[in-house]
């Protein structure tokens, strides 16, 4: 498999990263280099091998379903670029 310019632009769109024509052209070569490098994995026989989901076999610890945190709206919006009355402000989404 190899990556072409259209694929780079599509992936950039999926990743929500604006790319210039120049960036995209450079990325074609770089991404192909990396994809070619990882391609060697296809030669490994993985018949009957389970994909890893956790490096240490552990059961998920659970806790009581109770409120343990909260009442800190000011803290949560403190770092936001734009807020109003503890809401995050974003450009208009729905016309």
């Amino acid at each position, binding site marked *: 498999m190899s990556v072409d310019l259209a694929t780079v632009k599509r992936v950039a769109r999926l990743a929500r990263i604006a790319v210039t024509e120049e960036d995209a052209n450079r990325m074609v070569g770089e991404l192909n280099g990396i994809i070619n490098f990882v391609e060697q994995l296809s030669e490994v026989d993985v018949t009957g091998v389970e994909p*890893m989901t956790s490096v240490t076999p552990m059961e998920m610890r659970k806790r009581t379903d109770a409120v343990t945190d909260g009442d800190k709206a000011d803290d949560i919006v403190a*770092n936001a670029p734009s807020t109003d009355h503890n809401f995050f402000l974003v450009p208009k989404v729905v016309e």
Partner: protein
Amino acid sequence: MTELTSLTIAEAREKLEAREFTSVELTEAYLSAIDAANSVFNAYVAVTPEKALGMAKASDERRAAGTVGALEGIPLGIKDLFATRDVHTQACSHILDGFLPKYESTVTQNLWDDGAVMLGKLNMDEFAMGSSNETSHYGAVVNPWRANGSNQQLVPGGSSGGSAAAVSAFLCAGATATDTGGSIRQPAAFTGTVGIKPTYGRCSRWGTVAFASSLDQAGPIARDVRDAAIMLRSMASVDAKDTTSVDLPVPDYEASLGQSLKGMKIGIPKEYRVEGMPEEIEKLWAQGIAWLKDAGAEIVDITLPHTKYALPAYYIVAPAEASSNLARYDGVRYGLRVDGKDIVDMYEKTRAAGFGTEVKRRIMIGTYVLSAGYYDAYYLQAQKVRTLIKRDFEIVFDAGVDAILTPATPSSAFGIADEDLASDPVKMYLNDIFTVTVNMAGLPGIAVPAGLDAKGLPLGLQLIGKPFEEETLFRTAHVIEQAAGRFTPAKWW
């Protein structure tokens, strides 16, 4: 006062207890060392003198009142990846401009609870993605080591390059670091310091900016094995806020130092003898084997057949997880925002301006391998290979091997802005060839300095252990350290 900064944590601990000096005096010594030399190394991206002196004063008061924590009064540097309340926390990325968290990471909280003092935040590769510290938004870090007769600036390794340089240049007594593919061990090896990546789950990841959640682990970089043992004991804990943290008692790692290696089996994996490896590293490895044999360990040849697939599998799994973790940086809740004509345009422009080249590259790779039609061929295949990599280790450990000895890196520190490495990202990735398997299998690994190459630059050996058997690593690394001695750079700054 400068001599205070040359003390190890263990030495400073003893002298603080003997009232030879106060934590305020020790902290002042470090702050003046930073003041004098940080412009040379660029190791700190934020120095917090007021906070440091306040914490040191409080520590002296606690000591006077008879309350003494395990790191009481010890000044530490903190990698910029750890959230520190109201203090610079940006993972050295432009996209987190101005971010001042309203919370403290569990690892740093553990250190403060044990009495440690924060000197400031340390430089690193952006979002911990890099092996040279050159991807930082704040610029490269300079390695305190130089080749004999040369004044060429060398990298300290990465991603914890600021941590390694600061420890090596005596700008902190010890530093926190993190390791996703080698980011503690490779910079430790490049700077003649000791770095341990503990077993996955040993330290809480809560409050540590996420890169690849199934691989990320915090650990210390320190001047020697004992200091690393002291620091890890404080950093490690089970944490209700990280369900992957493990509920096992944290041992007194320091107590394992000096214990005999008699009866211990050390495995030597043939797959780590890679093509083009410098002869000096071969020699260093053989020397390490001889030291452990002299100390009473039995040396056995082992095979880890899937080793060569660890790096390619890593470059699928880590970018995939990163692309997901870094989706949160969108200009809405924190950090940089670049306005656009609509919300998607704002996201795209913010992320284009906020992320550096290497971070974008990895997000792109991650997005690609997770995208429709490629998931099975790449991500699923990589996760299966990961199972096989872990199985290789399990087979060896089941056969009675206690620890595995390998080189830490395929070379000593290289130059800043190396053209050969800059032209091909995969070449830079190969720096992690000996360290990355350990993350893929979730195992503990320690890098310990073992000698100098012909250029006079430090080289390290790596020991890999069974899950949660960090004590074995400290005990064995201590034997190497005793035989090899300690390595400090000749002061030119």
